[in-house]
Structures are given as structure tokens and as C-alpha cells.
């Protein structure tokens, strides 16, 4: 039952990727660090966003940020600020910009750029320590970025 929903979701996400409305990482326009336009045109799913934020192999945002709402996820880091109230402090466009490429908002930020595919030094093949070959995938898909932003907007 659960598996079907996940597969269906993956399928939809896949379709979203292929959708003409998906903005590729290189085509994103930032204004003062914010991205006004949705990357996919498909509304983000906050439940999926929370999953991306807390899963090590996905966003792993909790490695650096504490989020009270996700207290049941073990081990929140303290490298970045507490994200409680992020949806109050920032607009949706600003959050999209921060998650896609935080260095546009915060110069020299330690926060990784989750929707960027170029400009890396010695890019590896995931966590193998070997050199990357072929096309570069961003850390998160366009729809995952939208899902994360939708979740952050619930942190009011």
C-alpha cells in the first residue's frame, strides 16, 4: 500500500522533471538571493519536504540545523541557525533561493548549494571518493526543492 504511494510519487516527480516547466539549475534566476518562480510549477508537498530534510542520503539539513518540529529525528547539528520560524522570517521566494543556492543570499556560506551543477572543485562520484563522470545531477531535484520550501513555509 505504502510502497504504491511512494512509487506513484516518484513517478509523478519523474514526470515533473520531464515537464517543460522545470527550470534547469543553470537557468535559474536569482534576485537578491531569491527565486520568484516555482522550479516545477507543481506545488510542493511539505510531508515529502520534511523527509528530504531529515534523510541523510537526501537533504540531510538536520546535520547542520535544529528543527523543533522534527524532534523525533535523532541528532540535529548546530552549524547553521535553528530553523524554527523560518517561514516567518523569509518569503517563499527567499527560501527557494536559500535552499537552491544559499551562497546567493549569504556570501561565502558554509551551506551547500542544493540546486547547482557547476563550479565544483574535484567533483566526486557521490561519496565514493572517485572522480565524477558524465552529467552532473544537483543534490536535490527541482521538485524536492519545492517540497522542502513548502515544508519550511509551515515553520511559522
Amino acid at each position, binding site marked *: 500500500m505504502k510502497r504504491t504511494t511512494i512509487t506513484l510519487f516518484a513517478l509523478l516527480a519523474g514526470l515533473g522533471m520531464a515537464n517543460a516547466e522545470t527550470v534547469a539549475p543553470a537557468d535559474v534566476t536569482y534576485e537578491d538571493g531569491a527565486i520568484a518562480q516555482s522550479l516545477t510549477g507543481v506545488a510542493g508537498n511539505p510531508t515529502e519536504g520534511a523527509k528530504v530534510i531529515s534523510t541523510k542520503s537526501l537533504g540531510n539539513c538536520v546535520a547542520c540545523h535544529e528543527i523543533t518540529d522534527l*524532534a523525533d529525528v535523532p541528532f540535529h547539528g548546530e*552549524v547553521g541557525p535553528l530553523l524554527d520560524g523560518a517561514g516567518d522570517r523569509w518569503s517563499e521566494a527567499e527560501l527557494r533561493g536559500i535552499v537552491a543556492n544559499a551562497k546567493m543570499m549569504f556570501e561565502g556560506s558554509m551551506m*551547500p548549494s542544493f540546486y547547482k551543477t557547476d563550479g*565544483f*572543485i574535484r567533483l566526486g562520484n557521490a561519496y565514493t571518493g*572517485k572522480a565524477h563522470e558524465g552529467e552532473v545531477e544537483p543534490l536535490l531535484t527541482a521538485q524536492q526543492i519545492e517540497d522542502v520550501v513548502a515544508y519550511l513555509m509551515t515553520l511559522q
Partner: protein
Amino acid sequence: MKKFHGIAALVAASFTGAAIATADENAELVINGDIEIVTKTAAPAHLSDALDEVMSGWRFRSDQTQSMQMDDFDNPGMLGAENGAEIWATADGTEGKSCADCHGAPEEMAGVKAVYPKWNEEAGEVRTLQMQVNDCRENRMGAEPWGYDKSDAIDVEALLASVSRGMPVNVAIDGPAQEAWEKGKEIYYTRFGQLELSCANCHEDNYGNMIRADHLSQGQINGFPTYRLKNTKLNGAHSRFKGCIRDTRAETFSPGSPEFVALELYVASRGNGLSVEGPSVRN
């Protein structure tokens, strides 16, 4: 000044419902009730614009891990040093010589580990301790060189570290070593991989902070070789560098590579003034 988040870490631990064993950052290390180890001291001059104090990774480990290093009988890394002592006394190679035949007792080498990596005038290069040992093996013993950070090499390095324990790390960074040192420094501040993180991002800007379940230290190497509870063996500094760079989703460098030799010199120099404490225990 660095901000510390010891209290924040404790709060986070209780709030996530999982017990993260936080370190007592004020504990002092005395080994066997005898060897006093400097685990915190003023930063060396070349580092003073970045850090006020340098601290050994020992300070950031849990009480239990800390105490394993206070007595050689509890320190699993000492088994490696013991094996190193056996290798030291055993003849090898076409010359039929052992390390002891030329160097005497291991204790004769007290102080050597503290000044490596070091410029070798004859060879015209900066050498790590392992490179120097391999030079003796190949050119004085007629023996095969050991693989970099492999068990024999690490065990002998642990032996040589153990006889220098308590002595201040004091690697030279000027003169002919300066070029390699500059190269190591550049690597230290380069933001590698898809996560675009440098050594400094984690170990200079965020030591004392938690990154997920890990309590970040300054990434010092005065305690190497280090016995890690995680992989239950002695680990070389280059292997640790390799792992840290791999974790940034980067193409890493290899143990023994010129990049890691330079990086070892630079990182060692960041710990000038701390005591040699290898073989240490870490998680």
C-alpha cells in the same frame, strides 16, 4: 573568540531523546599517571589570526573514550606500537638488518616524531615519517617499502609516536619546507566537492559544534596514528584526510600523495605546541 555550544549540545541531546556523550573540554590528559600531555595551548604564531588556542581531538571525545587513552593497558592502539617494536627488532631485506641494528632501542628515537614531516636536504623534499622509514627499508635494508598507511607502516609509526609522547609538536615551516607548507595551507582552505566544504569550514569555523551526531574537533593530528573505535584499528593521518575529503562528495587524494604530504605538514604545524600523543584513541 570562538563560541562554544556545550550547553546547546546537551539541550539538543535531551531534546532528540538520544544521549550524545559530550566531552569534558576541560579535562587534562596524563598517561599512565606519568606522561603529561598538553592538549590545549596558545595557537602558534602563524595561526594567531585564525585561532587563539589549539586543542587536541582528545578534548572533544566522550569521558569513556578519553579515559581509554590514560592507561596503556586500556589503549588498544598500544597493541600496534607493541607490534611495531617487534618489527623494529626483526631483520628484513637483503642486508639482513633490523631498525634496531642501526638505531638502537626505539627510545633512542624520542623526539623524532615531533618534528615530522621534515625537509630532507639530500633528497630535496619534505618527508613524512613513513617516507623516511621506507627510505631506510629500500636503501639501507634492501627491503620492500611498505604501502602507505598500511598496518606495518602504521604500527612502526605508532611505536615512534609512543616514544615521543609528551614532547611538543614542532615542525619547521620556513626555509626549504615553506613551499610545501604553503601548498598544504591552500588545500586546507579549498572548498572541495559538491558540498563545497574545506577543512577550515568544519575544523576552524565550527569546532565544538555538532554536525549531525559528530562533535567537531579542530582536526589536529598530534594524536596520530589514532585507534578508532569505529573501525577498530590504527589509522594514519592521510587515511583520515582521505575520508574527510570524500565526505564532501569530492574526488579525494591518495595516502602518500604529494598533496597529502603537504597537507600533513600544514596540519601538523597547526598543532605546534600540542604534545605528541599517538597512538591515541578516538571514536
